[in-house]
């Protein structure tokens, strides 16, 4: 347990705050990579997923994509893109990798949310004269939000973990401390950085857990809690 004390000491030491990579900067970069990548992925995947869920077209592709994506090793993808883009474009290459990894879970959340809306509800909406886009906008999207947020949640966790691995290609983010710590055999630094990463990941996850609850429409929640 001594190591934990040393790790905590590392987190709060002045060296860590003001070294070549200050801790606050590492956290900020880590978060910035995560937020930007997930946002870009969402802009692409959310509308696409809604359309797939609404029309049923391209469903096979979307399902196959989100299944196969799990098999792609994220660390390998980052290194591959950095080499392909060239080492002078590490930020762009890494971000591209993060976006690619974030798209499948968001896509899955968007289309499965729309698909999970009961057929009879959609049928009722059409029967009273909603246009196709009104059905999507007024019924399928609001009722599918919890699953969409679930998809964003998985994507965010995936990206947080991958940004950590990207510490191997650049002196940025919290992963760099671990990669550097391994080289210089500084286990306090490794554990300290790991603890910060865990706290960051858990906080983000908690945020999404709360959001997931908040977007359950009130009428649906009322039914779930019983009368």
């Amino acid at each position, binding site marked *: 347990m001594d190591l934990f004390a040393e790790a905590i000491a590392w987190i709060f030491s002045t060296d860590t705050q003001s070294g070549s990579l200050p801790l606050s900067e590492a956290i900020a970069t880590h978060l910035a990579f995560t937020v930007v990548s997930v946002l870009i992925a969402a802009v692409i995947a959310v509308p696409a997923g809604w359309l797939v869920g609404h029309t049923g077209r391209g469903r096979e592709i979307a399902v196959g994509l989100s299944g196969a994506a799990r098999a792609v090793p994220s*660390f390998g993808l980052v290194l591959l893109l950095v080499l392909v883009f060239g080492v002078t474009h590490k930020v762009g290459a890494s971000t591209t990798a993060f976006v690619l990894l974030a798209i499948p879970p968001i896509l899955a959340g968007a289309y499965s949310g729309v698909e999970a809306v009961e057929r009879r509800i959609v049928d009722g909406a059409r029967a009273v004269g909603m246009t196709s886009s009104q059905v999507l906008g007024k019924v399928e999207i609001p009722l599918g939000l919890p699953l969409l947020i679930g998809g964003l949640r998985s994507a965010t966790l995936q990206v947080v973990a991958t940004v950590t691995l990207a510490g191997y290609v650049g002196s940025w983010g919290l992963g760099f401390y671990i990669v550097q710590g391994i080289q210089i055999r500084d286990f306090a630094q490794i554990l300290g950085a790991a603890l910060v990463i865990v706290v960051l990941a858990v906080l983000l996850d908690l945020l999404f857990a709360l959001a997931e609850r908040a977007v359950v429409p009130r009428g649906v929640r009322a039914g779930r809690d019983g009368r």
Partner: protein
Amino acid sequence: MTWVVDNLDLIGRLTVEHLRQSALPILLGLLLSIPLGWLAFRFRLTRGLMLTVVGLLYTIPSLALFALLPPLLGISFLSEINLVIALTIYAVAIMTRFVADALASVEPHVRQAADAVGYGAWRRFWQVDLPLAGPVVLAGLRVTAVSTISLCTVGILIGIDNLGYLFTNGYQRQIVAEILAGVVAVVVIALVIDRLLVVLGRALMPWAGKGA
């Protein structure tokens, strides 16, 4: 391509290593998650607890988990056991939720019918609940297998040689083909194992239909 042809030996050896390292976590994930998933399914109290714990474990980024385990378990940081335990934790985290959902997917009237014809609780679990939960458990096992095989590559960062070696080695030597070969090899073996599990599932659960 020439790099691949010249290094088939290396790729083959790393693939075998990779499979060996992934197999145990997948298997352990399945075995441990059955009692844990049952706990999560059966009791309200344990359900909240189990699902929160596995949810939290799943949240921890891999590189951070490698760093956390050694001081907690008294194992060496740069060791295969560290990798195997970390992968097992992820496997259990994924599988427990699936097993709990799988058990919940068994229709209550089937369970009641089994009780009515006189199954004991233990026998009913093994002969009715678990087989009927099988298709969903299999779906979970497929997710677990694919994720584990993919995640295993991160082991190279703590000095464990597997297909991840092609990533760091290729990166240091600036050989795109080497990294690409590693990525493709991982995807291919993950998908092959996935198909094998589907075939195995059909053989073991002929009643489940094509959807499983």
